[in-house]
């Protein structure tokens, strides 16, 4: 059975040892190497499996902007809270339920708090589940539509197939990853290679990542999410650097096709159009958002509830003062660089958005001890 064979592959201890040796060998004559991942799930794998502690000193792994919850602008959260308190039923994924807004709305700072204050909020697993529930719900409904390219097809297909009730409005905070990758690279400075998002790439295919590899002359590897996948991707990047190569390699071949998912992209293009969009704490990134086209504007929450999106010239940071989420999201800082991290900002009482989602860098580090922390402590006490 294919599935069982993949399970067996995940436990490949010997292969992990061999890859570790290969990585150390490849890194030997190289200078400082900075490898950025773009997906919160890759950061999860890196931290959960202690991959940073397997790296030689000159190989630094940094986390990028790949957490949709972390970059959802505060105005969208505030509006969803407000509507839920006014009697509009708001459906959200669990990941965004506790996401704090910058400004409180009637003393409330998240959909979770809104529900506790009598607001109408429900957590769902999928858009399809929300659509099914909304059919039996009286009055106006709203979906808090976060996500990247991976999530967009579920919305696009549902609208195209006509299964969404007509008083179910969609608040699109959908964002596109390649423009953010480009933006982050322009900010971080010297990055030697990229671990590109595996599941986003099942939709986009190789093309946008190949362009990034070409434009920035660096190796980019589309990676799977098992620890072995990430180690293979790191070794591949180091090998390409050593051989002076740039370009794109698909490591996650069992799931990602060169052309991506054309069917999903066709539906996305029918329902959404690309627009400039706000990323929390970062600003407006050109051509990085998706909004409903005129044909589907009857579902558009921005139109129904007169929600105004911030424009580039009037944009101001929507993070709490002192919170380092934007720098952490762009790979410019680590959670431990933030004055709030695990002091006043904890998974139980998050201040910034990166402490909320299971894919937020701060939440991952808080839960699993950060990158290489155990090793640092071991060195300090002289047992490593």
């Amino acid at each position, binding site marked *: 059975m294919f*599935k069982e064979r993949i399970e067996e592959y995940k436990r490949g201890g010997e292969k992990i040892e061999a890859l570790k040796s290969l990585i150390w060998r490849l890194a030997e004559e190289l200078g400082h190497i900075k490898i950025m991942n773009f997906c919160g799930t890759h950061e999860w794998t890196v931290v959960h499996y202690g991959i940073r502690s397997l790296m030689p000193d000159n190989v630094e792994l940094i986390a990028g902007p790949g957490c*949709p919850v972390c970059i959802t602008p505060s105005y969208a959260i505030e509006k969803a809270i407000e509507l839920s308190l006014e009697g509009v039923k708001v459906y959200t994924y669990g990941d965004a339920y506790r996401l704090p807004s910058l400004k409180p709305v009637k003393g409330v700072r998240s959909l979770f708090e809104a529900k506790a204050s009598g607001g109408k909020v429900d957590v769902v697993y999928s858009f399809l589940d929300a659509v099914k529930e909304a059919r039996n719900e009286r009055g106006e409904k709203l979906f808090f539509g976060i996500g990247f390219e991976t999530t967009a097809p579920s919305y696009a297909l549902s609208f195209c197939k006509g299964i969404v009730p007509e008083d179910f409005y969609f608040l699109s905070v959908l964002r596109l990853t390649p423009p953010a990758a480009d933006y982050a690279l322009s900010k971080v400075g010297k990055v030697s290679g990229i671990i590109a998002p595996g599941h*986003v790439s*099942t939709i986009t295919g190789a093309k946008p990542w190949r362009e990034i590899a070409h434009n920035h002359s660096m190796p980019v590897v589309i990676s799977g999410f098992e620890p072995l996948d990430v180690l293979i991707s790191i070794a591949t990047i180091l090998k390409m650097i050593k051989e002076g190569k740039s370009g794109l390699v698909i490591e996650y071949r*069992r*799931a990602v096709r060169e052309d991506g998912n054309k069917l999903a992209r066709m539906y996305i293009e029918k329902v959404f159009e690309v627009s400039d969009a706000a990323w929390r704490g970062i600003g407006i990134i050109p051509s990085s958002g998706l909004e409903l086209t005129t044909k589907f504007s009857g579902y558009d929450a921005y139109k129904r509830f007169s929600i105004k999106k911030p424009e580039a010239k009037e944009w101001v940071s929507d993070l709490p003062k002192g919170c380092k989420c934007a720098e952490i999201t762009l790979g410019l800082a680590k959670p431990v660089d933030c004055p709030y991290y695990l002091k006043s900002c904890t998974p139980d009482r998050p201040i910034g958005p990166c402490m909320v989602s299971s894919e937020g860098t701060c939440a991952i580090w808080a839960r699993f001890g950060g990158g290489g922390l155990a090793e640092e402590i071991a060195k300090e006490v002289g047992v490593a």
Partner: protein
Amino acid sequence: MCWAIPGKVVEVKGFLAKVDFEGSIKEVILAVDGVKEGDIVMVHAGVAITKMSEEEWEEEQRFLKELLEGRS
């Protein structure tokens, strides 16, 4: 948010399918062409985004073997 898990398709009905995740059956939207009963799909937030391919997984294994043997 971009986490996806593999499940086995047990029934296809138009653009929807019932998928078995280790015994838990969930109805999902199919955003992939040509999915049939028995296929393994990766499902993210209730939408099947790709079909897993055994053939390409074999290719991945060859890639790893060559990387470790220094031939790629």
